[in-house]
């Protein structure tokens, strides 16, 4: 089992859209996938029309009693652990753990799933907390959506620093340009400058109404019978992630 975290400390860069679509693409390739919605806003759960069961909360997650709360999506091989409102304080709860185990909490929780799933994909909240440290530690690969803007690049730089702090290899991190608008000069010039950096993937995801409309239709872009530009972009992204970090 490989764990992929889709993470950025900056909000609005397309993390959830990426998680939802990567998870769908991987499952359609025949892999058993679990999407963990770690963001208390629950957007990934919403896209898949999944609500948490009443008895689910943060404590159950941290006590390792979350397996009965995993729910099947409408798509074969793709399950989802829904977010819960109490996840907003997940970092505080993790902070109460013993110091030496603090960064391993998430990794320990996910380890027993190894026989059940080929990939666990984490949708992460946009902040820099002990939860972020946990996510980076647990992940085999951290996928970072970067809108071609200065602030988004700053968030990537921040992540690299965090990585160094927790003692993780920089190689884990794979960035890609997200919500790219070709008509914007800043987008094209930033992409031109940074795209050749090894940390960046060649695949990118354009800004598209179809992706925005996921909130309306509540399903991944690839699930409609017609193959769209957006679904192809996520397919290429998934292939590149697999080739570069997961093979």
């Amino acid at each position: 089992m490989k764990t992929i975290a889709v993470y950025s400390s900056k909000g609005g860069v397309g993390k959830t859209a990426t998680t939802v679509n990567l998870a769908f693409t991987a499952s359609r390739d025949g892999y058993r996938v679990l999407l963990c919605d770690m963001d208390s806003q629950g957007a990934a759960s919403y896209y898949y029309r999944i609500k948490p069961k009443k008895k689910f909360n943060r404590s159950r997650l941290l006590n390792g009693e979350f397996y009965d709360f995993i729910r099947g999506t409408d798509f074969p091989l793709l399950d989802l652990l829904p977010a819960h409102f109490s996840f907003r304080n997940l970092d505080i709860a993790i902070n109460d753990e013993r110091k030496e185990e603090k960064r391993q909490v998430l990794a320990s929780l996910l380890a027993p799933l190894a026989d059940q799933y080929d990939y666990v994909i984490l949708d992460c909240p946009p902040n820099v907390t002990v939860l972020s440290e946990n996510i980076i530690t647990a992940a085999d690969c951290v996928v970072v959506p970067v809108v071609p803007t200065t602030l988004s690049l700053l968030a990537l730089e921040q992540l690299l620093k965090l990585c160094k702090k927790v003692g993780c290899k920089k190689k884990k991190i794979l960035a890609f340009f997200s919500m790219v608008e070709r008509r914007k000069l800043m987008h094209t010039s930033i992409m031109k400058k940074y795209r050749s950096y090894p940390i960046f993937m060649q695949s990118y995801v354009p800004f598209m109404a179809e992706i925005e409309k996921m909130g309306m239709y509540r399903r991944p872009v690839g699930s409609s019978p017609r193959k769209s530009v957006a679904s192809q972009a996520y397919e290429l992204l998934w292939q590149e992630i697999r080739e570069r970090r997961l093979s």
Partner: protein
Amino acid sequence: MQITGLEMKQLRKNMFSFSHGDGFEALLRRLSKKFIIEDFSHEVTQRVYYDTFDWRLHRANQVFFSSGGALHLEQFNGQGLAVAAGRRRSKFFWWNIEEGELVERLKENIEMRALCPIIELSTEATQFRIMNKDRKTVARLAVRNDRLGEQTSELPELIIVHEIRGYEREFDGIVEQCLKRRCSEVKNKRLFDRLLSNSDLTPRDYGAKFRVDLDRDISIGGAVSRLCLHLVEDMQKNHAGVIADIDSEFLHDFRIAVRRTRSLLSLLKKILPEAQCRYFQEEFRWLGTVTGPLRDIDVYLLEKDKYLTMLPAELQDGMSSFFEQLEVRRNGELRELQSHLGSERFGNLITHWKGFLTDPDSELFKGSRAQNCRDYVDQMIVKRFKSFIRDGDRISDASADDELHKLRIKGKKFRYLLEFFKSFYDEKQMSSFLKFMKKLQDNLGDFNDLSVQQTMLGAELGGLKAKNLQTIRFAAALGGLIAVLSDRHRAVRNEFESTYADFTRPEIKKLLRVMVNGSL
């Protein structure tokens, strides 16, 4: 924090069948009060299931079928084992399928046997999503109608409820609704079992293993009748497969049944009515003779790869024309055999033989044949074993090869005798004795096969005229093979002494003595 040993719940799949016509529609109407129901797929599919004549896949708990341009191998419980591209055919050998996991798995079980169609299935299935008010699927429902082959009547309509992880309550609710509506739950969820029980097939109704259970107080005539009717049935079961040339094993099994029949006639010739016994011995000898040439060629063709690997790469090419010629010769021999097996002589033999075995006024059931079989067989086993040991003890390093061949034939007859009447004896003791016997016979059998092969290849070599490079290459390959076979022949001969000594250990003699309550 350390969490280990996670066992996620297996998703449930319950099946139901309604005893009344509109049951499913009524169920949907009831469910639609609580859920949104949407049919999302309607399919008509065709499947052809295959197995070998002796049910080799069924014996391995496996199912092979073609469907929609693909060939599938599954376990009985529906778990997929391997898939390959391929369309339906009148028969499949493993070498007709593209290389890959499917071939590897198949050849392990079916070896040289052909997979033939056993069931043709046509299925019409509609799938429904059962959704909550958020239009999230909380369960899946399928209704399927299966039709077998040309049959006009369908199997009972089947309703299948699939659980979706995390929506146990909804699944339980739907199952409850099904049960409330007078539909019966189908406990056996294996599709293939359902198909078999609705067909006129009897799985594993044929196998190469010989077993006839005889009553302890059966007469000699009665026992001969039971045993030989079983054997003649085997011949008849394989007859069509030999004629249609489905695979080599139909003929092989046919010949074994003939050989066993001849052996029984020979073992009991002193007690069987003389004139009839002579007639049937003569006719079954004829049947053995006319089926021989094709089987001899089959043996070479089946061992083709083995022969080639015996030779160094540079000599292998020389053998290819030999195998091509064999294929041509095989066609001629097959035509010949087909005419023998369709002849009046064959038809008469089977009719007369069955009459002799079943007619209450038959000589078979009169005179000394009416005496108890078990007592007679006890004596015969003791006598035959002693005679076998006497001949075996006489064999030394200096003995001629012919002595070993004679011992092999005697041994084979003795083993058949034990197999015919094994139901008289303790099963465990008998199978243990037969196991020891088989070890010795394998050695003698290998020795004989190697002799025959060398002779045949030698005759082939003797008939060659060096007219071109191709012939010279073939001669070189034959020479190479004969040399390898000769080495093996010697090695097998050298192993005889220890194998025989192993078989004649006092405890094995004791085992036989205990079995037949006799003195050895």
